[in-house]
């Protein structure tokens, strides 16, 4: 090998090293970062316990659970307490439930989530309903596939700041000093001599989130129950449209979760799938706004510009506004967007005709829809609301009412939409 060749190889190796360090490759944070992957602590006993009994709706399979974090009732209960615990935020003003409200199918009603410092997140809080079945988590990261690892980003992330904690220790100290929570940790991890640990917090929170299964809508009673009258005629007409080849809604929002690819116990493996729906078309290359690059944010491949995961449409009625940045206010507007094969923004910094985007996914070709058909389709989408799920006490704040943190003030849902 010549000297020049050696230098070239060294340069390439250095460049790839820099890329890894800058996170372009999507590598996990180092172990001393509070967002490092969650594993059992050295010396911590392996998880044990009685098999967990799922409360699965009719027709729903058991979710796939990581072998190092098997489900247990005590862990789920601890996770529920932690989910509503505001000590997980820098100033004690936010819990997981601030951005994931049960009455809104575990979303927040905002276009874009608002962090503890007032920083607006580039994307909206995704619904946690049926998150146990997702093959990837969040809007655009194909490699984020474990709830145990995902939850460190909202707690410790600094770009953007969400809950704003900087390290694990102060949180663990605070929890250790709370006898009631410490008892729950001890019950959930009975063989662990130091049960109050951040890793166990992550295991418990992930376990609780896996129980957030929604499958009690009118559609479910019609399809999986024995109630052919569960759907009204308009809803049934809408259902036919939704699943028709002409509209193709179920091509992306399919399966029993009405979402993209899923996994469960015994299922085949499917890779994550993301789409550019022609929401934006900036410049000749079909760019999205800089904070909305989607999958390209992780892969740096131009063809991944603006690609996002197809979220579940279950409970879609209560999760407005829509799209990754909440820039579509109503369900009717969302249908119009897909019917047109992309969104047209007439003026302003994001002006462009999304239908003409060179980056738009090929299957987004648009369709024509008569006004009465649109009404039927809307009726069907509303029939995907699981009202019992939105009020199920198993998922609610376990604290006595007097101890609960107040709900955040109502906000304009489009606070993060088109500027």
């Amino acid at each position: 090998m010549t000297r020049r060749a050696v230098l070239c190889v060294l340069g390439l190796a250095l460049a790839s090293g820099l890329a890894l360090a800058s996170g372009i490759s999507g590598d996990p944070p180092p172990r001393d970062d509070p967002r490092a992957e969650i594993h059992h602590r050295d010396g911590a006993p392996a998880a044990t316990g009685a098999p967990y009994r799922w409360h699965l709706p009719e027709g729903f399979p058991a979710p796939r659970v990581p072998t190092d974090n098997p489900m247990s009732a005590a862990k789920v209960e601890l996770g529920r307490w932690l989910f509503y615990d505001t000590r997980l935020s820098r100033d004690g003003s936010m819990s997981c439930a601030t951005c994931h409200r049960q009455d809104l199918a575990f979303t927040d009603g905002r276009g874009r989530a608002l962090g503890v410092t007032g920083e607006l997140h580039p994307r909206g809080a995704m619904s946690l309903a049926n998150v146990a079945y997702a093959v990837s988590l969040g809007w655009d990261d194909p490699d984020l596939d474990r709830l145990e690892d995902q939850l460190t980003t909202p707690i410790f992330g600094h770009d953007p700041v969400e809950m704003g904690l900087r390290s694990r220790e102060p949180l663990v100290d605070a929890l250790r000093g709370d006898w009631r929570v410490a008892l729950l940790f001890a019950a959930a991890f009975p063989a662990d001599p130091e049960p109050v640990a951040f890793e166990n917090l992550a295991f418990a929170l992930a376990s609780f989130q896996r129980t957030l299964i929604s499958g009690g809508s009118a559609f479910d009673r019609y399809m999986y129950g024995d109630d052919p009258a569960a759907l009204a005629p308009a809803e049934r007409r809408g259902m036919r449209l939704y699943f028709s080849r002409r509209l193709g809604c179920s091509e992306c929002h399919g399966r029993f979760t009405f979402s993209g690819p899923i996994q469960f116990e015994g299922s085949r493996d499917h890779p994550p799938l993301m789409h550019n729906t022609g929401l934006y078309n900036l410049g000749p290359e079909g760019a999205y706004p800089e904070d909305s690059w989607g999958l390209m944010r992780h892969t740096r491949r131009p063809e991944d510009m603006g690609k996002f995961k197809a979220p579940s449409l279950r409970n879609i009625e209560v999760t407005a506004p829509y799209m990754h940045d909440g820039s579509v206010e109503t369900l009717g507007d969302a249908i119009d967007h897909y019917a047109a094969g992309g969104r047209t923004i007439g003026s302003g910094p994001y002006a462009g005709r999304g239908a003409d985007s060179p980056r738009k996914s090929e299957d987004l070709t648009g369709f024509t829809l008569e006004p009465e058909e649109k009404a039927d389709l809307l009726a069907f989408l509303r029939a995907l609301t699981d009202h019992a799920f939105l009020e199920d006490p198993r998922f609610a704040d376990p604290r006595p009412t007097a101890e609960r943190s107040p709900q955040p003030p109502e906000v304009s849902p489009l606070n993060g939409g088109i500027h």
Partner: protein
Amino acid sequence: MSRTTLSFVLILALLSTSVVFGAGSAKKETPKANHETHYNAGVAKMEKGDWDGAAAKFAAALEAKEDFAEAHNNYAYVLRKQGADNFAKALEHYNRALELDPKLAQAYHYRGVLHVLAGDEASAKADHASLLKLDRELADELMAVLASGEEPEGHGGASGKWK
């Protein structure tokens, strides 16, 4: 023909016969059984959309082996693809396939499709319920058919080649 020549011809004939039989008995172990050969040929034709040709092959496979669940399943499918006049006959073959193999998920899937196309929603739902326990992915395909009333694309409910 002289006596010597006749003897020579007879010996040659005897030799060639024994060679043919010998070769035949050696080959008997390698080729697939008759019903499998017909079945696989049927699958190949089915995948090309040659419904008539596939039907003939599956019928031949069943003639060779009547208790061949996969052949009943695929015969039913290509019969259905040949037109609504064949729906009743297709249903008989789906029923026979499931009688032979009650765990043949594909047969529940495509029998469910047949029920939907024939307007029998209750029977289609019963097949969907069976499928939920056997193959959750095919169950979701049948759910989409039940919901849309449209025939699915591909051959998800047909059985594959026999190996």
